[in-house]
Every structure is written in C-alpha cells, then in structure tokens.
C-alpha cells in the first residue's frame, strides 16, 4: 500500500532546527512588514475593487492555508474542510443577528463552537485512512450543508442568512466602515498566517510531517498519532472558521454555498495551484485562483473550460504547484552553480 504523501515523492525529510527562535523573530518581522505594506495599500491605490480583492484573499487564504496544514503537512486529504468555513460564517452571522453581543465576543464564541464541532467530527474522521478520510469528511460537510438547508427557521434555508449582519463599533473599530473592515481582515490574515507558521515550524509541526511520511514509525517511537491528527484537525478548523467570519463580514450574510463541498474542492485546488510543500504556496494559489476567476468570468461565459485547461497545465504540465515549481527551480539553479 502506498501512503498518500501529498506531493512529497522521494524528497528527503526536512531536518528540524534545534533552535527555532531566530526563525521566529524573522517570521514576526516578515509578518509586520507584510501588514504595514497591506495597510499602506489604500493610501497608494484608492480603488475599492483592490481592497475587496484583498479581503476575499484574506478569507480564502486563511481557509486554504489551514487546509494545507492537513493536506501538505499531515497528509490528511480533507474534502470537507469547507464545513468549518461555513460554520464560521453562519455561527458568527447568527450570533450577531440573534444576540447582539459585541463583535469580539461573537468572534471568540464562534471559534469556541468550532472547536466543539471539530473535536466531535475530527474524533470520528481521523481514525480513517486516505480515501475513506476524504469521504467521511465530505459526508460531514454535506450533512452540515443539508442541515443548513433544512433548518429554515434558523438559517433561512437556501436563501441564506439575509438581512445583513449588524456590526456595532468596538474599541474604536467600526467594521461597517470599509477601510476598517479592510484593515481588520488584513490583521486577521497576517496574525492567522503567523500562528499557522509557528504551528508548522514547531516540534508538533515536525511530528505532523513524520505522521505524513510514516505513521507506523511515528507510533513506534511513542507518538499518539490519533491525538496529533485530531489536534491539527481542530486547529485547522479554527483558522478556516476565521476565514468564514471574514467572508460573512464582507458579504454581510452567510449562504449555503459557504458550506457546500465545492468550497472544499476549491481549497484543494488552490493548494495544488500554489503548491503544498511551501508554507506560502496556498496564499499564492488563492491570489492566482481569485485573479483567474475574476478575469476569466469577465472575458467569457465558458470559464469552466479556461479554468480546466489551466488546471491541466498545472497537473500534467508542471506536475506541481507554482510555488513548489519556483522553489525547486531556484534550488536546482543554486545546485548547478555550485557544481
């Protein structure tokens, strides 16, 4: 039986650094610079479309990067990760519409609810392997989707959560102001990415890579594989839900499509597009897919054909995601230079 290795192939294992602190400072610095650059964007370009684009990138980017914690780092191909995106959007939207609690409270409560749901679903799912894991996650996703559709009195059924999400100001932040929403989304994105980066580079992150490459060996040296998989499943769910919350704030509502399996499919596609072996691959994939979607939809009504051909180019032509390709290309060039 071949273990699914998510594009790893025969590459040697990365060797963990003994002291990760210098890298941590570097990551925090990069995150700060990235945030400052994003915050300067509205000053340099006043275009609302661009800011909207970045907000959507933040929502989908958090979702896709968290999916990569499962797919790329742990070798868990989840087809149902989108359920947490939808759960975040609906949980937050409902909380704001029904209870009128301040936004930070609703935010934290939504994440808490996500943890509970993810622990229950994850405990069942991570027992299964490979394709069965993929399908049982898909089944849970569709179960949640069906529940949203049928629980009309609460969720509005196929019409979605309409009527807008109230956004009372808090701590001087007014999310009904477009600029405030933009900065908040950017902050959530950067903080989320930084946290995920820390998870990926931590000893726990390397445990995940070991489980991906050889789960049997991992359990032989005393790692509780089931628990490690469950922990990353729940953590990834949290970031996906955060993406969903940003989306709900952005569109001021929540729709059943947010919890439909195609969201998960798109997430996987984004990962493959950008690459699963580099941390920022999914972010690159998100930007690529959103640009692709926007331009192709504007140019032709047959955007499926164009998108399909682009996917084929990556899957059969490049045989890997863009970031993977670029990184390997540089590594190869450097190797040649030395030789």
């Amino acid at each position, binding site marked *: 039986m071949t273990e699914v290795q998510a*594009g790893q192939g025969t590459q040697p294992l990365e060797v963990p650094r003994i002291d990760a602190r210098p890298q941590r400072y570097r990551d925090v610095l990069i995150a700060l610079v990235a945030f400052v650059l994003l915050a300067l964007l509205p000053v340099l370009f006043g275009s609302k479309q661009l800011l909207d684009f970045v907000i959507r990138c933040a929502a989908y980017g958090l979702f896709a990067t968290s999916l990569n914690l499962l797919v790329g780092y742990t070798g868990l191909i989840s087809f149902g990760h989108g359920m947490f995106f939808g759960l975040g959007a609906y949980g937050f939207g409902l909380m704001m519409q029904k209870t009128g609690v301040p936004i930070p409270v609703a935010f934290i409560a939504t994440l808490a609810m996500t943890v509970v749901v993810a622990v229950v679903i994850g405990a069942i799912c991570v027992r299964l392997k490979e394709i069965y894991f993929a399908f049982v996650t898909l*089944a849970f996703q569709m*179960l949640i989707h069906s529940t949203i559709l049928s629980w009309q009195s609460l969720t509005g059924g196929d019409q979605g959560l309409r009527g807008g999400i109230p956004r009372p100001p808090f701590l001087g932040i007014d999310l009904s102001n477009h600029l405030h929403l933009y900065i908040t989304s950017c902050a959530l994105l950067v903080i989320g990415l930084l946290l995920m980066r820390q998870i990926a580079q931590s000893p726990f992150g390397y445990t995940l890579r070991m489980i991906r490459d050889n789960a049997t060996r991992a359990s032989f040296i005393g790692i509780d594989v089931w628990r490690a998989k469950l922990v990353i499943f729940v953590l990834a769910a949290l970031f996906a839900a955060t993406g969903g919350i940003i989306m709900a704030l952005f569109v001021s509502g929540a729709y059943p499509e947010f919890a439909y399996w195609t969201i998960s499919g798109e997430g996987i596609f984004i990962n*493959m597009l950008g690459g699963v072996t580099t941390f920022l691959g999914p972010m690159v994939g998100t930007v690529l897919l959103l640009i692709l979607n926007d331009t192709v939809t504007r140019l032709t009504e*047959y955007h499926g054909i164009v998108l399909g051909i682009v996917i*084929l180019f990556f899957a059969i032509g490049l045989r890997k995601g863009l970031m993977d390709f670029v990184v390997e290309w540089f590594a190869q060039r450097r190797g040649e230079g030395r030789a």
Partner: protein
Amino acid sequence: MDLDALASCLASPACLVTQTTSGLIIGMLLFLVAVGLTLIFGVLKVVNFSHGAFYMFGAYFAMTAYQVTGSFALAILSGAVGTALLGLIFERVFMSRVYGRDVLMQLLVCYAFVLIFDDVVRMIWGPEFKSMGMPAAFQVPPLFIAGGVVPPYYLLLIGVALAAAALLGLGLARSRIGKVIRAAAHNPGMVSALGINTGLIYGGVFALGGMLAGLAGALAAPVRSLTPGMGFSVLIESFIVTVIGGMGSILGALIGALLIGLIRSFGSLGFPLFTEGLMYLFMVIVLVSRPTGLFGKEVA
C-alpha cells in the same frame, strides 16, 4: 419532518409499492454509475471524479440520437457506445499520464475535466433544461400492483440495469477477460510480465466504466430533465454508494445503491427537506462502524 406521512405510507400497500419502485429505479440507475466507479477504482486505483460527466454525456447522446433517428433502442445504444469511446480517449490521452502519481493530481485532472465537460455540453446543447420525452412505446397506462402505480418504463429500466449487473458479475467471474482484469487489479506487474498489455486493460476498464455510466444516463433521459452539470449530484451519490458498499466491491455497489435508493424514496416522505442529509448520515454511520464500507476489504 413529517413522520406521520411516512407512517401512513408504511401502513398502505399501495404507497409502499409506489415508493419501493421509485426507490428501486433511483437505486438501479445509481448502481450503474457506481459500479463503473468502483470497477475503475478496483482496477486502476484511480478515483474517477469525472465519472458523473459520463452519465451526463450518456443522457445527451441518447437525446440527440432519439431526436435524429426516432429509435429508442438506438438512443440507448449511442448513449452507451458514445460514452465508452469518450472514456477510452479520456483514459488514454489524459488519465494514463497520472497513474501512480499523487492522488491529488489525479483528482485535479478529473476536476479539470468536470469543468471542461460541463462547458462543452453548455456549448453544444445550450445551458437550458432539456427533456427527451418518453418514447411512444412506453406511453401506455401504468400498471397497478397492490394499488401502487408502476409505469412500465420503470420495469424496463430495472430489468436493463439488473441484466447489466448480472452480465458484469458473470463476465468478471467467469470469462477469460474477466479473469485478466481481476488479475490486473491484483497485480498489474505480474500481468504485464505475462505479456498482456495492461494499458489496453486499463483503457478497456475505463471505457467499460464510462459505458455503464452512459447507459445509466441514457436510461434516465426519458424520466429526468437534462442540464449541464447534471452529472454532479449523481457523482456525489454514486460516491456515497461506493463508499458505503466498499470501494472496489461490485456486490457492495449493488447493495449500497439499493439502500440509498430506498432511503431517498422513503426519506422524501418523512424528511422532505433533509432527504440528502439522511444519505450522508447513513454514510457516516456506516463508515464509523465499518471504516472500509459494508463489503470493502480491510486495507492493510
């Protein structure tokens, strides 16, 4: 939820017959699609995510052939043969490039073709709903069994699907080609070393799988409306069927398809809005209690 409706139906023989037949035809159509999927997985070890497209093409091919020739038999035949050819080309030109590679890459190639095929259908046949219409031979009054309504076409549909199932099962178990296919599923390297062209076997199995899905689409064309993207819900349902039955098991596909058909038909009475949810719930329950499906072999 409408449990009273479900209870009163279960108490009435007429309703029982009607719902059971409707569950059976859903199940038989699903079986034809799912058995192709499970066969392709069993032999090629590929999860063919584009399988629903073959169902869609089968329906459109049948509709066009019926409009051109007026013969229902020719319509069914062109649905089946057309998709078999399409499957063969698709497998040889594209899928064969990603064998043994990352599962994600295979899924991605299939996903690309789901998008492409849907748009191709939209280009050729237009985006709106189409209907083929019931062939004249079957525009006869329905049969009444214990007071339940059973259109004659349903009987044909169930008969053809059962015949296909029997033929497939016997063919795989008894015929020489069936044995070679089973051997290739088990140990392709050995089969190849014995001088048998495994590429041909793979192409053939993919074409066979495509043909079964196309046949299902052609059979469904008179009773369902045709639209680009119609393959998708069928794909998801047939995935559920294969997973419930156990990936690679033909008997499992049959049992799984019938169970899903019955759940859908009776579930639509008791839980009108949550019928789909019931299917997923059932799948979750099966996978939790038997992680490789009802008839799946334990994956080592």
